[in-house]
């Protein structure tokens, strides 16, 4: 029983962190209709940078997201303005190829600059846990989860309480109508891409403590994030949260009762099973425009 509760709690903690990582992907897809394959590479880029920052200055990796998030906001903004925007009028498949290319470039740069080896930031609390009754809560997971909740909460406030946020939601629901009421499509898209990248700024910082990583880890991460987003329904933020929790739980439960090696596979099997029953994902809606 304790083991089960332990697995549940760990699953929720990991699910919250997954939710943060996937939120950027789904935000970008919602507004730009682009599947950003480079989102995983963003995470690894930030994790590597955070690791370097922690090694050289001793700044706590998770707190370092206060630095990495604004940095990634800027990187995302420039990337959109200089590169992504050039293909905004091309078929969707081209954006997949472009962001795939960007992911490779980031991987290649990390390989050349930082070297192809496993890393992991190990601050003092790395192997400590909080104890609640019989249940152990690893401190790193708890801090990561808290950071994720704070950022997701902030994102929610930005999206619902600010003009910029309303512009993003309007554009994601109906781009042409949003343009008609004076919402600049390019500015909104740049903002969404920048926000999505900034969320990877936090996600990557958390990743650097929780998981060992190396430049090519981004394939593993992007397929996980994409799985979450497909499960929840592309472009739906509540969907991403639910998908992240479901998959976080599935993964931890498999790791607890099955074996660690197969837990990633269970992840993909859950996705396939959901797609079999509900092809548009849990929260995905079939829109009027789909039929036109």
């Amino acid at each position, binding site marked *: 029983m304790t083991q089960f509760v332990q697995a549940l709690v760990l699953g929720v903690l990991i699910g919250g962190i997954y939710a943060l990582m996937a939120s950027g992907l789904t935000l970008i897809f919602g507004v730009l209709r682009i599947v950003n394959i480079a989102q995983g590479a963003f995470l690894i880029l930030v994790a590597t940078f955070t690791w370097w920052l922690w090694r050289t200055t001793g700044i706590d990796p998770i707190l370092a997201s206060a630095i990495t998030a604004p940095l990634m906001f800027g990187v995302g903004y420039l990337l959109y303005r200089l*590169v992504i925007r050039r293909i905004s009028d091309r078929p969707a*498949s081209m954006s997949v190829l472009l962001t*795939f*290319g960007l992911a490779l470039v980031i991987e*290649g740069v990390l390989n050349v600059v930082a070297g192809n080896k496993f890393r992991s930031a190990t601050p003092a609390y790395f192997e400590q846990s909080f104890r609640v009754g019989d249940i152990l809560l690893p401190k790193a997971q708890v801090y990561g989860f808290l950071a994720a909740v704070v950022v997701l909460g902030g994102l929610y406030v930005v999206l619902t309480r600010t003009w910029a946020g309303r512009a993003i939601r309007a554009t994601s629901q109906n781009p042409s109508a949003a343009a008609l009421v004076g919402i600049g499509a390019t500015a909104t898209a740049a903002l969404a891409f920048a926000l999505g990248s900034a969320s990877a700024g936090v996600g990557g910082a958390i990743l650097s403590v929780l998981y060992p990583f190396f430049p*090519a880890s981004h394939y593993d991460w992007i397929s996980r994030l994409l799985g979450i987003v*497909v499960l929840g329904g592309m472009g739906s933020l509540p969907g991403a949260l639910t998908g992240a929790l479901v998959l976080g739980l599935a993964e931890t439960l498999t790791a607890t009762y099955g074996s660690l090696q197969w837990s990633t596979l269970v992840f993909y099997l859950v996705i*396939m099973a959901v*797609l079999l029953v509900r092809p548009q994902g849990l929260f995905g809606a079939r829109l009027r425009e789909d039929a036109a």
Partner: protein
Amino acid sequence: MSFFRRLGRQHLIALVVLLGLIVYPVINPWQPYPQAVLLAMFLLAIQASSWNIISGYAGYISLGHSMFLGLGSYTAAIIALHTGVNPLWVAPLGGVTAVVVAVLAGSVVLRTRGHAFVIITIALLLSAQIVATNWDSLTNGSDGITLDLPFWSSDFQNIPFYYAFLLLLVLTVLFSAWIARTKFGTGLIAIREDEGKAASIGVNTTIFKILAYAASSFFIGVAGGVYAYYQTFLNPVGAFAILGSVLIVLAALVGGRGTLYGPVIGAFIVSLVNEGATVYGGSSQSRVLIMGLILVLVVLFLPAGLLPTAETVWRRRHPVQVEFTDQAGALSHDTAVVRDRLPVKEPGPVLEVRGVSKRFGGLIAVDGADLTVERGSITALIGPNGSGKTTLFNLVTGALPVDAGTITFDGRRIERLRPWTRGHLGLGRTFQVTRLFKDMTVLQNVVAPQPDGKLRTMFADAVSGAEAARARDLLDVVGLGAFAQQKAGALSYGQQKLVELAQVLMLAPELVLLDEPAGGVNPSLLGRITDVIRELNRDGVTFLVVEHNIPLVLDLCDPVYVFARGKCIASGPPARIREDPLVLDAYLGDDWRADAHA
């Protein structure tokens, strides 16, 4: 000589290159290195050419296609390991494994449109690696499998492998060329250009996509079996490396995806660059950077790829007069056989809509609508903008699912059937804004529809033969036979409407739904359109027309149904509709009536 002229310039060049590659090991036999480089080029070309079927023709990008090479390798190697059979003889089974996996995964993720596919292709590649690493008893886990050395004398070096891969490459290209010629290939391009439209003209998009994915996997799987024997060793990390997929995507993109020879040309170039980067660029780490940069640059600055870009330049330098073919055919043309499938039926309702509803969130677009279309009639559906006419069309043709109510077509309940099945039953439609496949020729557009779900129809020749002849015939019916070889996007709007009508007629429809046939069409063409509708109606085709041009409706149609706020408020012969107060009210509102009576 005339044979070569008919063959075309591209095929001629390909033939010469092929001959050169066949004789190369004979004239330069003692050079293992260039042979190995050429061999790698063939292997990549096999993969890129296969990838092109699902991702080039059908437009569904696969980022994990090298998985099939690994699956083929493992299949052959595992059989060899456990039975002692030479892996070369069981290499075709590698192709079978690839096809089985493609069909299974495809039937899960290819049922819908959109992005799930690209995501699953990456996930599949990673999953395959996990399975190969952890299923020790079958695959030897991360230690990998070591195979026997080739059974032939070392004097032959790798020359047998050279010819094996060259043969597989030729087969792959021929296979791809054959697909492009069939209606299956035309259907795949239709899916790439506009999937919803493809479904409306009878293309079973799910089956087409799954078959395309399977077709794109077979030869890679076979090549994988041969490749395992060539390498004599395989392990999970090498067999399911994502860099292999990167090279495939890059090759097809550089050469020109969607073309026959583009992926092969691209594969030769990318393979050489890859070899150069390995020899001069140091580690495989920098290769990732180089390939990534090339991919970004190609997407940004050469999105069509080398071959199509070169073709465009060539065309500009050597302009060809547009051939207005088939003039004679058009002039000698009698009444076309539009419907030859069903015998003449008793009069009675062909379409019955009963209590059909559809809501989008809080908006009720169609609200318990009833409608009957009698066989042989030209029935009109009019109503103010936003009254739900087009949504009703979408419900009848299956582009949208109904929330409630029944739709009966020809005595058969159809509201739960897929769009293409309704097309096969004889239900066709045109769109308010024409949705032709703009990059296809007019003729290809008209050949594309699938009047039934049979495999024989699917793999019928689309370039010549009965289907193409019938398409030319229908183009003559709408008076556009002369434009058969033009790109559909180059035609005027009204002409496009006529082509779309010819396209629907290819389904041999019993009932055609026309969504604003007169919208945006100039008056002279309008006459042609109404003539065609009347002519077809005499031949037994029933029409349901949504139209805002009321004089045209009152002249052409009988009976007329009037829609307002999602349901039918009046129906009857045009003369009565013209006088109906309810109709005037719906169109012009209370103010007008108040003013009129004041």
